[in-house]
């Protein structure tokens, strides 16, 4: 017998702890937590200076997970991510020893992923998918849980290598960090412009508990109607040609249900609701659909198009 309320309390504590460091961004924080529970990766898009890195670093601290950051640049090589063999002298002999790259961490923040060359992007995305890296003839299994958070800058597209659709489809969410409200920004200024230090965060979860939570997610019961609605929503992105040129794949349907289950667990519910589905639909679909010229002409964003579909399919 399990008390689902226990999960709600745990995540409330996690978010409260993150709140000591990050002001606002509750939606983004919840989506990061959902992605972690789904054992998936997320794409984080936001303007510079919105505490994307701090947010991920704080989550890693609270969950007692190792954290590493990769700053992507056009000259970044795959071996800079995966690691490489280096020549070392041991007992008077010279041997090749594998030097692990930054990918060997539980939470990897791949900053500005679209600045890396397609070759480096592929190496990172392969590690994300396979949860292992192969260097030379040797394969190294990555530590569990493994979670990549790649950031993208919506401006300064000059000299970038946008992620191909097939590769961006591998990210569960495209999380958008929004500018804070007036009150939140004032709080940020108060907190970080004084001599008062930001209090250290408490470790609430650990590797084992996160792995256990990941195994619970898929057990959350979901009604057939909600599954049908998820499929209808994804199908509508493919069929509705009035605003959308290319729709989402069936992988999106699967992700919608798994992410809804994870949200239900975070909220301390023993079943999935339509509210869960609505909450996860936008971050799941926004990087999987391409709007047509008509939508762009009318100034409709992907989020608006998805909201319209959600309104139609109730």
């Amino acid at each position, binding site marked *: 017998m*399990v008390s689902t309320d226990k999960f709600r309390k745990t995540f409330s504590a996690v978010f409260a702890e993150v709140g000591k460091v990050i002001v606002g961004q509750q939606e983004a924080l919840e989506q990061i937590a959902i992605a972690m529970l789904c054992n998936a990766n997320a794409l984080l898009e936001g303007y510079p200076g919105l505490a994307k890195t701090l947010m991920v670093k704080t989550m890693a601290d609270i969950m007692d997970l190792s954290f590493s950051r990769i700053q992507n640049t056009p000259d970044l090589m795959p071996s800079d991510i995966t690691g490489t063999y280096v020549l070392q002298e041991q007992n008077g002999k010279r041997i090749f020893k594998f030097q692990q790259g930054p990918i060997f961490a539980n939470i990897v923040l791949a900053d500005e992923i679209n600045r890396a060359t397609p070759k480096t992007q592929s190496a990172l995305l392969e590690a994300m998918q396979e949860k292992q890296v192969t260097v030379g003839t040797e394969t190294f299994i990555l530590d569990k849980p493994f979670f990549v958070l790649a950031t993208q800058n919506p401006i300064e597209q000059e000299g970038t290598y946008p992620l191909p659709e097939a590769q961006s489809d591998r990210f569960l969410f495209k999380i958008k960090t929004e500018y804070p409200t007036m009150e939140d920004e004032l709080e940020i200024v108060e907190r970080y412009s004084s001599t008062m230090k930001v209090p250290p965060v408490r470790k609430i979860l650990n590797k084992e508990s996160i792995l256990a939570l990941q195994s619970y997610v898929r*057990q959350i*019961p979901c*009604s057939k109607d909600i599954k049908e609605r998820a499929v209808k929503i994804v199908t509508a992105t493919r069929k509705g040609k009035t605003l959308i040129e290319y729709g989402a794949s069936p992988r999106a349907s699967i992700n919608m249900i798994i992410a809804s289950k994870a949200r239900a667990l975070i909220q301390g519910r*023993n079943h999935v*609701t339509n509210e869960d589905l609505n909450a996860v639909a936008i971050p799941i679909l926004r990087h999987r659909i391409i709007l047509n010229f008509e939508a762009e002409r009318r100034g409709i964003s992907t989020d608006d198009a998805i909201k319209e579909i959600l309104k139609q399919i109730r």
Partner: protein
Amino acid sequence: MGFEKLAKEVNFGFKNIIIFFTVLRGIIVFLISFLIVITIGLPWIVALIPTIIYLFTLYKKNNSINKFKEIESRYPELNERLRAAVDNLDESNMFVYDLHLDVAKLIKDVRMSEFFNKERAKKDIFVIAFLSIMIILIAPLNIHFFDLNLDNGVEQWDLPSILNKIYKDVIGYGEGDGGIGENEDIFGKKSIAILGNKEIEIQISSSNSEIDIRNIKDVQPATFEAAYPQEITAVGAQSFQEQIPRDQQELVKNYYKNIAEVQ
């Protein structure tokens, strides 16, 4: 009681209500069709066609209704929980178990009587009663707005004819191969029964009848007296012989004898 049993009970109760209202509506459709059919001179059995189509359509529509969703709409605390619980009856993990326990507690408060629309039932029954009275009043008047009766005497499609046909087919009464000849013990000799084989159709139109039932009295016994005249007497066969000349009598006798032999 386990959740599975509770869910089955709720489903059963809901189905019964749906069947009840489907039957009521089916009767209404039949009565309306019947009323139309008798006024345009078609056989009454034609009224069954729209009724069957309507019942089939209604059954399909009702079958597609998610009964648990209907329950959820009246009991918000069960919203989305009940369907999740019912759809995961076969699953067994701690979350499903927890959900079943939750829903089992809440489902006990569900009263199936709330789904029985008394107003609708009253209206339907009233309509049925009204239509029945209409039929009873209209039927004896033999009102035919159009005469679309297509049988033209070739085949009778009215109820007595159909029953008669069934009766004939099943037990071999009447004409045809399965007829009298095969059941002489029951129906008597064919040669006798055949005399009454001619069908007589008698139709009395009550709206245009000159018979006044009140004036009909008991049958009076009639007495018949022998009224033929006494002077008429039969003449014996000998008078026939006497008219033939004696010399030709032998010739006539031989003539008839030869005819008899040829036959």
